[in-house]
């Protein structure tokens, strides 16, 4: 991307360090950290050092920008939802991550991490996947860079997401069924970690969201901040005041939201993260440690982690990225929930008013915007920038009965 104007930026009343480098301890307030076995500590150090070096290296940034542009299809447009805006009495702008290669924001992160792994001399990418979107993105980036890919996926998710398993196979990735625990995303994360411990010399664990031990939550946010950085420049051009009143994104682990918020955290925009009611760690979770980091986690009274449930497999994660927990505690971002029915209605609504079929995950963000605009919680005349994180083609079969 060329030089862009930052005109329209308004006064900022926020700590200058919001969403910055969490330092060597990887702490976001009391959250984050590095809760992994001693065996994985050298690997975490190695990745942190490699990422710090790469992120400062114009050559690496240049390669990444080039791939994001000529391969992944960036920058993605900011599309006004013309008819829906009129219906709701607001100005709704959609950041179109659904238009990237592979159809979701996941590609931003995997291209970055795959480049890093390649630079580190790793031969193979390991990944966990729930719905299969991150698995497909990882398989894609591995093929692009000539790396092997091994994707861990819960047995139950494999049954539910047959097409994505096929896509990964066609792309040359090995899909390993996870048969333990609840046989879904959280167990796939455990299994990927276990596998990583035993293959750390030649394998790189490509985590799909802003979770895991330091430096992952920070690194993944940095790879995703291209969403927010682009959207900010686009909003500056599109809106009279330059900055939207609301910035909204859906949250599972929270990577598209983290990337989106990073572009607006130092503005006056209100940041809103939308969780699935059945997987709302920011709303119903308690502080805990899962998958290598401390954050808000859905768990029972004794500390056993609960399984998350929603119509969107990509949001079925019982935790939330540590930086989101910190943003929540500090009041900089708000976290809200929507239910499956609202989500399916929102999906259908956008399809019919704009000719855009959003992923079920992204439809969560939209469902809240619709509800809040109708109730007046978002006042009439407000401007709303919402990240549409992925396309809905993958969800057609699963919503057939609900339409």
């Amino acid at each position, binding site marked *: 991307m060329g030089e862009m104007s930052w005109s329209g930026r308004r006064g900022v009343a926020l700590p200058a360090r919001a969403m910055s480098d969490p330092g060597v*301890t990887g702490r976001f307030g009391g959250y984050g*950290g*590095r*809760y*992994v*076995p*001693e*065996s*994985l*500590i*050298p*690997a975490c150090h190695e990745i942190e050092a490699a990422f710090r070096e790469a992120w400062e290296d114009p050559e690496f940034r240049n390669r990444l920008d080039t791939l994001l542009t000529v391969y992944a299809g960036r920058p993605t447009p900011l599309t006004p939802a013309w008819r829906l805006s009129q219906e709701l009495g607001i100005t709704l702008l959609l950041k179109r991550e659904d238009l990237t290669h592979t159809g979701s924001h996941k590609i931003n992160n995997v291209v970055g991490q795959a480049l890093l792994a390649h630079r580190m001399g790793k031969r193979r990418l390991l990944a966990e996947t729930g719905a299969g979107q991150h698995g497909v993105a990882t398989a894609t980036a591995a093929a692009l860079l000539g790396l092997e890919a091994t994707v861990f996926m819960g047995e139950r998710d494999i049954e539910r997401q047959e097409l994505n398993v096929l896509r990964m196979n066609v792309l040359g990735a090995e899909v390993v069924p996870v048969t*333990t*625990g609840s046989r879904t995303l*959280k*167990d796939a994360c*455990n299994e990927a*970690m*276990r596998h990583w*411990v*035993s293959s*750390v010399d030649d394998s790189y664990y490509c985590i799909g969201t802003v979770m895991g031990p330091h430096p992952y939550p920070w690194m993944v946010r940095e790879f995703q901040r291209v969403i927010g950085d682009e959207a900010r420049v686009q909003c500056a051009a599109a809106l009279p005041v330059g900055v939207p009143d609301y910035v909204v994104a859906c949250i599972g682990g929270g990577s598209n939201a983290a990337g989106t918020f990073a572009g607006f955290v130092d503005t006056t925009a209100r940041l809103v993260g939308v969780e699935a009611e059945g997987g709302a760690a920011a709303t119903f979770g308690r*502080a*805990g*440690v*899962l*998958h*290598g980091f*401390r954050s808000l*986690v859905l*768990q029972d009274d*004794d*500390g*056993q*982690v609960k399984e998350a449930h929603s119509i969107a497999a990509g949001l079925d994660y019982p935790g939330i990225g540590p930086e989101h927990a910190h943003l929540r505690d500090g009041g900089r971002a708000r976290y809200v929930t929507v239910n499956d029915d609202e989500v399916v209605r929102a999906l259908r609504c956008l399809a019919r008013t704009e000719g855009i079929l959003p992923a079920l995950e992204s439809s969560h963000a939209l469902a809240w915007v619709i509800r809040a605009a109708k109730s007046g919680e978002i006042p009439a005349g407000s401007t709303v920038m919402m990240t549409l994180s992925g396309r809905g083609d993958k969800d057609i079969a699963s919503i057939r009965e609900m339409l």
Partner: protein
Amino acid sequence: MTAPLEEFLRARRAEGRRLLVPYVTAGIAPGWTDVVRAYADAGADAVELGFPFSDPMLDGVTIQEASDRAIAAGATVRGILREVAALDVAVPLVAMTYSNLVFQRSGAEFCAELRASGVGGLIVPDLPLEEVGELADAAAAEGVDLVLLAAPSSSRARLREVAERSRGFVYALTRMGTTGERGEVPEAAARLGRDLKELTDRPVLFGFGVSNPAQAADLAGHADGVVVASALMRRLLDGAGAGELGEYVASIRRVLDQGARWAVHPATAPSPTT
């Protein structure tokens, strides 16, 4: 109430004894505390109690299955501790569990509850040096020995810090990987044992992949002893009772004792079994 963990292990080692710490997943079945007694009677030097967690990142399939079974059976930290408090065994007990259970309320409270139930040691595999500070202080204040892990991938500087800050013993991982039975003893384990023994006189025990008595003896030769977990839990999951598990521990005990005698009195040692 038993003796403090490290003091006890050091005393046992001073007798020329190879240390043996068998493991049981607490709450896996009614009467699981009989397994602890059977281990103690069979010559264990301490018993490791796994407090089951839903997401045991560092455990292989056997301990995962044992943990799932215990949770399904309704095992809770408080419930387990109540049963442990009623146990009267002559060797120290060491709790093994993940950070999320330890920090439910606070590390200090968890350690106080362990101490009150007569548990003298604690192992938290997902708590590396970077994150251990608060819990180490709390454990020390409660008189619970917080055991730290050393891995084949640890740098010399980290090994030194682990050796200094660990209490009870140093838990040396035989390999890069999860718990579970494995074939041969990797070269990395021998090297790790040697490095740790150079750095500390604290007891050093190997764990992960200790699958049979001969292997236990082999590994113990590179340090002060072994932790045996999956080999026992697989037998338990296959239906073995406390008696049978005790016999298996006794068989390891016998081989370790032969190895120890060989080490102490080479001239009079029997031929090492293979």
